[in-house]
């Protein structure tokens, strides 16, 4: 209430009291007594107003109070406006909560929130169908009491950011993918959100794909061996030169196909996340020399230059690392013209240990660099027949580095050369 309003209000009330006292005084003849009576009556009236307001407020403003009309109506309208806006706010809030709940139950994934002692605080409706966690009965229960897969309880203890586990629920013939994220609530207590998705279809498909590659590669190898054997016999025994040439071509192509199948098999093996990686101590220099030895006897001469600046050993899987080195060097050899230079280096700085193969070959066009690690991707569709190679080498390098936690950096310029760098995080170097 503004000051002028207050003054007018007070003056009006005072005037009313004075006039009433004056009238009663003239009627009774005693001004003092009548003033006392009027003021007491006024006070009692005010108390009644206050009491009725209190009653009304206690009942959520549902009962009308005495001030709805008359000189306190302004107070009344202010209270009404306030309660109305609060009510609207509350209604909006309730609607929002309702919507969030409806959304949570509509999601096909199960969601569970647990507190720092792993007690269930909240869960949605899908968690009943997927996991048997009932939102009506299981609040407060330890999550491990209801979801009893030993693998889940292990994951609950050892989960990390960005990882998940797939568990087979054989009772319901399902594959479930569990993912746990940690967060802090308003009073900064650590809570966990467990999301569970039914990935049965996905994991079946994946399994079929893996099995197919492994089986198909294996099945292809057997007939290939026969083809190769007979073509070699024809090549050696044939008296006709032309026939011998044909047979020779068959042998060469069968060898090439054999290499493709072997690469496919090793790629599917690397991709298989069940394969455990060793933590070998790798002497990078000696691996490079081992690989280079096999190139000495070849007709095409390339000047290999070695630069080993780092003498620390790398901790990683030796057979995977060997295939990385072999693939990169054989690529450099293949795409560099005779007499060209290839620089192979192994160095370390504050952050990374880097293995690089830099050639002075034909280079890769800019737009192909991104796709060059895809399976069977070729820069020039017609080129593969001439240069050989399986089209899988860089895929193997890429996937092997992924598994080892390292990255592949490719830089290239057409007709100048390409450089392939494998960057390992520094912590993978052995401290001697």
């Amino acid at each position: 209430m503004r000051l002028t309003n207050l003054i007018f209000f007070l003056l009006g009330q005072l005037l009313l009291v004075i006039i009433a006292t004056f009238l009663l005084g003239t009627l009774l003849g005693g001004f003092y007594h009548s003033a006392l009576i009027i003021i007491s009556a006024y006070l009692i009236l005010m108390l009644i107003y206050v009491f009725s307001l209190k009653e009304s407020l206690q009942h959520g403003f549902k009962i009308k109070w005495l001030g709805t009309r008359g000189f306190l109506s302004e107070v009344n309208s202010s209270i009404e406006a306030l309660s109305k806006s609060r009510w609207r706010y509350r209604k909006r809030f309730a609607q929002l909560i309702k919507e969030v709940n409806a959304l949570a139950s509509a999601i096909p994934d199960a969601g569970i929130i647990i507190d720092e002692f792993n007690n269930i605080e909240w869960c949605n409706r899908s968690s009943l169908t997927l996991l048997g966690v009932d939102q009506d009965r299981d609040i407060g229960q330890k999550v491990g009491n209801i979801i009893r897969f030993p693998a889940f309880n292990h994951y609950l203890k050892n989960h990390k950011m960005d990882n998940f586990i797939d568990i087979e629920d054989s009772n319901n013939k399902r594959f479930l993918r569990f993912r746990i994220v940690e967060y802090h609530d308003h009073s900064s207590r650590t809570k966990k959100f467990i999301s569970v998705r039914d990935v049965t279809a996905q994991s079946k498909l994946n399994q079929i794909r893996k099995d197919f590659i492994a089986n198909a590669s294996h099945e292809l190898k057997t007939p290939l061996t026969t083809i190769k054997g007979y073509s070699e016999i024809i090549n050696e025994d044939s008296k006709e030169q032309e026939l011998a040439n044909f047979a020779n071509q068959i042998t060469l192509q069968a060898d090439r196909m054999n290499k493709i199948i072997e690469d496919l098999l090793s790629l599917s093996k690397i991709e298989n996340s069940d394969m455990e990686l060793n933590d070998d101590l790798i002497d990078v220099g000696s691996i490079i020399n081992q690989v280079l030895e096999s190139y000495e006897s070849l007709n095409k001469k390339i000047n290999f230059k070695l630069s080993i600046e780092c003498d620390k050993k790398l901790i990683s899987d030796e057979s995977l690392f060997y295939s990385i080195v072999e693939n990169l060097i054989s690529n450099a050899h293949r795409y560099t013209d005779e007499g060209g230079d290839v620089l192979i280096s192994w160095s370390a700085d504050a952050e990374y240990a880097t293995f690089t193969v830099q050639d002075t070959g034909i280079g890769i066009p800019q737009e192909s660099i991104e796709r060059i690690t895809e399976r069977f991707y070729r820069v020039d569709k017609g080129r593969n027949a001439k240069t050989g190679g399986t089209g899988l080498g860089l895929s193997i390098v890429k996937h092997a580095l992924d598994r080892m936690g390292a990255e592949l950096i490719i830089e290239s310029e057409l007709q100048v050369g390409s450089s392939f760098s494998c960057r390992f995080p520094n912590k993978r170097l052995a401290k001697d």
Partner: protein
Amino acid sequence: MKEFNKHTSRKFNEELESVRNSVLKMGGLVEEMLTQALHGFFQGDSQACTNVIAMDDHVNDLELEIDDECRRILATRAPAAIDLRLIMAIIKTITDIERMGDEAEKIARLSINLLESSEINKADHLEIQAMGELVQTMTKKSLDAFARFDSELALSTFRSDEMVDSQYKTLSRSSITHMMEDPRSITKRLNIMWIARALERIGDHSKNICEYVIYTEKGLDIRHAEDLEG
């Protein structure tokens, strides 16, 4: 389970809770063992069977651990009424769970035998499969009932043991017929019979767990009771 949170001593609550959690952890292990053992049998996966045999040691360790903890609670807290019933139920439950583990291990060993010696065909699988699924569900439900102290679920699971028993009877009858028809198959048949027997025993142990749940929650002993209506 609400009743167990009402003690004046918070430590006591925690002790009861933690021993209950261990029982369910043990139950989870045995569920996994049963799953793996059946998987090993159906898929001819001897690696899974070997895993099961290794897992039984964990279950045995847990039994000893929980036993110790219960003895300590009995000695130091002198529980009464529902707490006493809970501790008694836990002591009995872990014995049953441990036996279930032993039976699952038996299934794994028998499966390895079968894999090594004879050819199992699809028909043999089908007979065990229905029973295996039923027993798996029973085990899961009985442990769920234990987790929630849900006597209704316990009672319905308790009753489903009849199904397992009748399937076992059918299976043994058909096995006898097979054996009489073709005496060469007796070794294989006996192995399959023993697997079915182990499953039937697991069903019985699940049934026992359900009895303990009802006993704890209602204070009602339904062991050896004929009339369970009402």
